[in-house]
């Protein structure tokens, strides 16, 4: 019977059925790894989707960076003057982290919840709702990490990374992905049908366009600046841009904290909601 400890190849020697209650209950148990494993199984057969996402950043950087910079001259950021591609690259990295995270956590999650009923089977095994949430988040971060890595390679190759601080952009991009993934999942648990996605898009598209990704915040009137500052994407863009340029300010700690808290609240909400939806 399955009560015999089964050595888990991914995590060494922990025994099979003793549930390890992690102190941070939000992280689920060690079994959350199997949720990641499931996604690996799925994408093993459709790796083309992963690859397409991998090349996307090159197209973005090339088209917007090179194309626009012939029209837009150097920009002043704080005390510095930087070329447009250097200005826009960290903003695009943050936006791409957001987009990737949202795709997984909204469309994909909705499909799994409403149509594929993927988790019904998972929850009849020792996995818990916390494991499901943690595992899906883990997968989302793995994928975002892959894309962020490709993006940063593209940045480096095109000479858009200003300082070696730019390496720090990698964990920061993951933080952005974490926050949006969590909020995306929490939001998705409230959606009733595909039509509700219109509402989601209504929130995402303006945020993407207005969040100082493509031009500095200073072009907006004061009231709009105040609104934009509140959006999570702006927080991410400001964090990554400051890091990329090596111009650190205390406000950036605030941006990071904002994203981290948003992510944790989103995770907790997702867990509570999924518990109610999946285990009525």
């Amino acid at each position, binding site marked *: *019977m*399955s*009560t015999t400890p*089964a*050595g*888990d*190849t991914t995590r060494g020697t922990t025994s*099979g*059925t003793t*549930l390890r209650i992690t102190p941070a209950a939000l992280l689920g*148990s060690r*079994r959350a790894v*199997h949720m990641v*494993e*499931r996604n690996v*199984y*799925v994408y093993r*057969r459709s790796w083309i989707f992963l690859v397409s996402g991998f090349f996307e950043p090159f197209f973005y950087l090339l088209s917007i960076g090179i194309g626009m910079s012939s029209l837009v001259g150097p920009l002043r950021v704080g005390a510095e003057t930087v070329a447009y591609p250097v200005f826009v690259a960290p903003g695009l990295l943050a936006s791409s982290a957001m987009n990737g995270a949202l795709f997984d956590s909204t469309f994909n999650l909705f499909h799994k919840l409403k149509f*594929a*009923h*993927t988790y*019904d*089977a*998972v*929850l*009849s*095994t*020792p*996995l*818990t709702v916390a494991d499901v949430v943690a595992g899906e988040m883990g997968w989302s971060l793995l994928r975002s990490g892959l894309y962020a890595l490709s993006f940063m390679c593209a940045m480096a190759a095109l000479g858009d990374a200003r300082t070696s601080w730019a390496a720090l952009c990698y964990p920061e991009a993951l933080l952005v992905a974490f926050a949006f993934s969590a909020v995306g999942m929490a939001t998705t648990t409230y959606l009733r049908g595909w039509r509700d996605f219109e509402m989601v898009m209504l929130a995402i598209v303006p945020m993407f366009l207005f969040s100082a990704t493509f031009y500095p915040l200073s072009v907006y009137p004061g009231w709009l600046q105040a609104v934009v500052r509140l959006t999570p994407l702006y927080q991410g863009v400001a964090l990554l841009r400051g890091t990329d340029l090596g111009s650190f300010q205390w406000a950036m700690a605030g941006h990071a904290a904002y994203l981290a808290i948003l992510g944790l609240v989103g995770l907790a909400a997702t867990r509570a909601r999924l518990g109610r939806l999946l*285990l*009525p």
Partner: protein
Amino acid sequence: MVAAARGTPGAVASAAAPSAGAQDTALVVARGLVKRFGQFTAVGGIDFEIVPGECFGFLGPNGAGKTSTMRMISCMSPASGGTLRVLGMDPATDGPRIRARLGLVPQEDSLDLELTVLDNLILYARYFDIPKAEARRRAASLLELAQLSERARDKVESLSGGMKRRLTIARALVSQPDLLILDEPTTGLDPQARHLLWDRLYRLKQEGVTLLVTTHYMEEAEQLCDRLVIMDHGRFAAHGTPLELIGRYSTREVVELRFATPREQADALALGETAQRMEVLPDRILLYTADGDAVLAEVHRRGYAPVSELVRRSTLEDVFLRLTGRRLVD
């Protein structure tokens, strides 16, 4: 194979009413178990225990609360009242440890549609922390059993309904559970697959696996179940071994009469006095009696000419009809 499945050991000692001692060893103990969905009470306070090695059946019409009960036992739905212990543990706090020893065949197939047939089994095993090599080995042998080896590399979506059902059942066995919960396992199976499953369940029982089955097929219940309950409106209408239930709630034999027109059937209602009890269904009359042939002779003597007539033994279906006023399978 059918013959093997028929060899259900008769009245197991514990079947009638488990003794006080049975409670300590019981795998599932429910006391006043309640499930509410908002204001609606789906399960209205039921008591039962399931002892190791038995096959316990839940019968009941649609909406009786069978699935709700199964889901509470599988720790997939919190109880709204009463107490429930599964494998000596509390589903509210020990869900993962309980589920590690359960095999579940849900009423609705919940296969992973994005994966192949084989990967469904392997991955499900992985959820139970079964090492990959072992998972592959078990998956291969279960595919054999489910007669799906040829479809191993196909996407689940391309399987027929019955094949999906077989895969779901195979999947429930991959963790080699101590307690197997089957919610209408044979729905959608063809007769051959159904008999194969009965045979397999019978062998699992012999190996010591405890079975919990819900079904709408009374011959299935009669063959497989040592004890069963008949559930209606969230409560137990009766419980006991199949033979006990038939003995208690029905007569030895039944005469079934079909008439050409509703009018003729209406006239025939006077036949009620020839039997112990009469049930009138839309398309036929059932006369319950100890001696079917004698009643049939009396029917003829009185000059009735049904288009079809049948004398048969009482089954659980008759018990069910008596208790719930409904038929098991419409």
